């Protein structure tokens, strides 16, 4: 699905944000990217859909090299990747429904978008998603009237409206309280499993990462220093990623709540596809 080879990013001011990053995503699962602030987590996610231009390296989504596309092709490939943000980044003054439908912008013409006349199957899909993320009846509420957790649900809905092949998730819970954080992560995991869409999730909360991800990638100074399952994250690994600290309280105990439902969906069941099929 996604193969990244030797990805590098050097900012114009000389900061080396990413150095020789390579990894592969080949099955629908939640992959958490952990690491200290400034390790390049955000840059990595943004290089994949080229909100940040990578300096060198290859980013293969199926058989398309994202790094080599022109603007028009890039727009096409961006439709296949849904993105979820820490600050939700909803259009505040638009309604929940408009925010959801904005996920379809890559598919509709300028005039349709302007007149808010989206195809009926998009509207059906949006109503379905609204119910799925637990915001039934909120379609005419303005985004700035929602709470943080609700906004993030809309953010997730918008990303899923794209019927993406890949979800890029940038610190989805960093602005939320612990309880909401867990709810949002659980929703994300459920949706990944239902839809069969893999998700790359930047997350700085190690415990959350361990509870909700199938695989963890550790970044330090722009390089991958760890890759493995949640259970393989030990105090040594964390020291390697973050530096010396007493990690005993951070590491998840085996019998803790929230075991992640291990099974992954074997078929793609995007809401859009379903709606389009009838």
């Amino acid at each position, binding site marked *: 699905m996604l193969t990244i080879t030797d990805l590098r990013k050097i900012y114009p001011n000389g900061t080396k944000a990413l150095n020789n990053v390579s990894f592969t995503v080949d099955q629908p699962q939640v992959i958490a990217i952990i690491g200290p602030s400034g390790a390049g987590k955000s840059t990595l996610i*943004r290089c994949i*859909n080229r*909100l940040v231009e990578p300096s060198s390296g290859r980013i293969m989504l199926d058989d398309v090299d994202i790094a080599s596309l022109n603007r028009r092709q890039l*727009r*096409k*490939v*961006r*439709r296949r*990747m*849904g*993105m979820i*943000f*820490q*600050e939700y*980044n*909803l*259009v*505040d*003054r*638009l309604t929940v429904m*408009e925010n959801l439908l*904005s*996920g*379809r*912008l*890559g598919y509709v013409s*300028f005039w349709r*978008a*302007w007149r808010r006349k989206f195809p009926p199957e998009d509207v059906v899909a949006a109503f379905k998603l609204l119910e799925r993320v637990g915001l039934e009846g909120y379609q005419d509420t303005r985004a700035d009237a929602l709470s943080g957790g609700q906004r993030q649900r809309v*953010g997730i809905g*918008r990303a899923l409206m*794209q019927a993406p092949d890949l979800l*890029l998730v940038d610190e989805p819970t960093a602005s939320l309280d612990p309880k909401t954080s867990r709810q949002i992560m659980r929703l994300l995991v459920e949706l990944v499993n239902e839809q069969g869409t893999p998700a790359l999730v930047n997350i700085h909360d190690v415990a959350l990462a361990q509870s909700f991800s199938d695989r963890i990638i550790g970044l330090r100074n722009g390089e991958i220093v760890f890759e493995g399952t949640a259970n393989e994250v030990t105090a040594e690994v964390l020291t390697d990623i973050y530096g010396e600290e007493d990690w005993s309280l951070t590491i998840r105990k085996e019998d803790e709540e929230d075991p992640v439902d291990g099974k992954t969906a074997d078929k793609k069941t995007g809401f859009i596809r379903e709606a389009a099929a009838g």
Partner: protein
Amino acid sequence: MSTSTAKTTPAPPRWNRMRMIENPTLRYGLLMLGVFYLFWSAGALDINWHRISTGIPRAGNMFARMVPPDFSRWSLLVKGIVESVQMALAASFFGMLLAVPLGICGAGNLVPKPVYVVARALIILSRTFHEIIIAIFFVKIFGFGPLAGVLTLIVASTSFISKMIAEDIENMPPGHLEAIRATGASFPQLLIYCISPHSLPRFLGVSIYRLDANIRHSTVVGIVGAGGIGQVLAATFSRYDYDFSLAILMTIVSLVFIGEFFSSWVRGYLR
């Protein structure tokens, strides 16, 4: 300024109030500089004190001639006022239309650098010159009359509104742009789906404010012959028709008052 610096008994700890400029040398230096400037500039100006000493009785005389205001030539007055209002409306309309593209081009986070530089240069250039300077040029090119006035006000409105739009767009959180870009939206779609919802209230607010400002300015561009009530007003002053001047001024003040009221009402409605 200094309150209690005298009688320095060493025992109790001294307290001085906080000042805007901490360094006393700098503070008093600036003060001295200010006083010095005052004398120097007052001396540098060619002021005809004799003429001014006769001015005070003249002012009394002038006021006497102003009151009561003469509304008898009301048809001339109404014609001028209507022309001014029309100039203001037309200029606001075209200013709004032109300001949208210019404002978008002036937003550094949306467009490539060269476009940004050109747009900003245009905005700065037209903002620097006072409306009346611009008006005098349009009068030279298009002759006397409201056309020059309308064009002047269009230039002023466009640069004002577009600067506000550009700043508003630049102040928007970068994540909002990222989010819509990440969906694969095209640039025009980004404009209607992200920029427009974000900046529309400000745009409308600024435009309404500008309409109000245009009404005020339309009353003066006439002084250099660019149409409107200002042309009538300037004529009354040169003919010492002070009672009619006062009538015009009172009408302008009430017009501006109405304009301001309308503008704040619409802005309240928009919010």
